[in-house]
């Protein structure tokens, strides 16, 4: 009975984590190019259960195997395409397909983002709205004279003086190795990166969050009820324990 208490408690903890994740998804329903996450749970490894009490010589009589709880296995990011909204601004770029823009962080490292709402800073450098430079294929910043630039659907920028710059759009064969950094960016730990190929760059569009509020609310109900079920299990175990303690031994 006491073992069951802990099993139900692990269930409540995992459901709480799942709810945290749903609330994070809902919080980012307006965040540009946000990718929803999902918490995947799995049971504890099997443990052998044996019965000692009823055997005459106090030998262990194996009963079988049992799983005594649940835990978080993985947090999975769903990289489904978000909806593209037209904004008509020349520096609003959306990747229709697979790929990420390359961003230079202040610490010199590279980050990757699908949120293409860029701007031009006072030096004429193309940056994110937070001021981080957007890099070209030579890993340099891109200088433009004006915001009114033409970018083709492969990310080639044509400047007024006739020169060109190619946006560095990369993809990751093992996309789940990307870590979310916050500020709509990802970093890559061990995974490899390749030049993205299957995409069309849309100028004057922004990618929206890929959250579906309906899915999240249904999940919320499911989590809430599952949490409640676990809570009931603890309550009924408590009652049973109460009976065992107070009534079984009554003289």
């Amino acid at each position, binding site marked *: 009975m006491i073992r069951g208490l*802990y099993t139900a408690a*692990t269930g*409540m*903890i995992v*459901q*709480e*984590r799942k*709810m*945290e*994740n*749903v*609330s*994070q998804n*809902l*919080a*980012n*329903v*307006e*965040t*540009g190019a*946000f990718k929803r*996450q999902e*918490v995947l749970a799995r049971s*504890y*490894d099997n443990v052998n259960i044996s019965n000692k009490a009823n055997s005459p010589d106090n030998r262990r009589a194996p009963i079988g195997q049992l799983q005594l*709880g649940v*835990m*978080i*296995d*993985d*947090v999975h990011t769903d990289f489904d395409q978000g909806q593209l909204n037209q904004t*008509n*601004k020349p520096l609003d770029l959306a990747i229709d397909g697979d790929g990420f823009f390359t961003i230079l962080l202040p610490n010199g490292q590279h980050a990757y983002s699908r*949120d293409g709402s860029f*701007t*031009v*800073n*006072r*030096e*004429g450098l193309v940056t994110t*709205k*937070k001021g981080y430079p957007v890099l070209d294929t030579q890993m340099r910043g891109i200088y433009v004279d004006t915001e009114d630039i033409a970018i083709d659907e492969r990310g080639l920028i044509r400047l007024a003086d006739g020169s060109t710059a190619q946006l560095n759009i990369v993809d990751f064969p093992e996309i789940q190795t990307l*870590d*979310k*950094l*916050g*500020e*709509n960016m990802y970093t890559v730990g061990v995974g490899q990166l390749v030049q993205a190929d299957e995409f069309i760059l849309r100028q004057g569009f922004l990618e929206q969050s890929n959250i579906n*509020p309906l899915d*999240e*609310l249904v999940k*919320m109900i499911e*989590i*809430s009820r599952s*949490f*409640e079920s676990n*809570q009931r299990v*603890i*309550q009924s175990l*408590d009652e049973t324990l109460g009976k065992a303690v107070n009534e079984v031994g009554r003289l």
Partner: protein
Amino acid sequence: MIRILQTGRTSLNAIQTKMDSIANNIANVQTKGYKSQKAEFEDLVYDQIANRGVPQSQEVRESGQRIGIGSRVKSINKDFKQGPLTETSNTYDLAIEGQGFFGIEDGNGGIYLTRDGAFTMDAAGRLADSNGRYLVVNRNIPPEQWTDMDVSIDEIIPLFTVTDKQDLVSLGDNLYDIREGTDLYMGGYGDGLGRIRQGFLEESNVDLTEELVGMLTTQRAYELNTRSITAADELWAMTNNLRR
């Protein structure tokens, strides 16, 4: 539970800010030369979650999985796209067709920028805005010559611009202040800053349909996020009721 509440709180704050900016756009749908603003969002840093209560023997105990903790407003940027021009047939009404700004003397030797071209001629023959601040001109021309318009207006009135228009700070009164360290460029029609139209005013560039749709979605997004707070509240109540 506390994390759920905090996540909900951060997003309610952010969505509230977006609603504020939409409200400001709608309030200025009739303001001459007003440029609409738009709030954009970003996610917050991600928290590593520990697998609490998991036996030591489980290898995923230190899983390194991360869950986010909400969202915030990334930027509120102005959209400087051209507003529609309406004819007023007032000779002192000017509108810029292009990306430049009028310069307005701030009285201390510096200048403010504006797109609002509703000027009046004062007794001294100088063009001033509705608050009596003077328009920056290359040379003054007498009022009688002004009404005839026998000189090119693009030569008389210079236009200004900055590299990064997001460096402009809205002051109210349709004026923009120039943030310190920003380079100011002066030019005119020949420099691609735009052409001045006399007898026209530039309307607000707020697209009312877009703002109203934005208001609906923002309101629903707000409502949606109150759900996660309600849910956290319910979970917490159930936890508190574990022992009856």
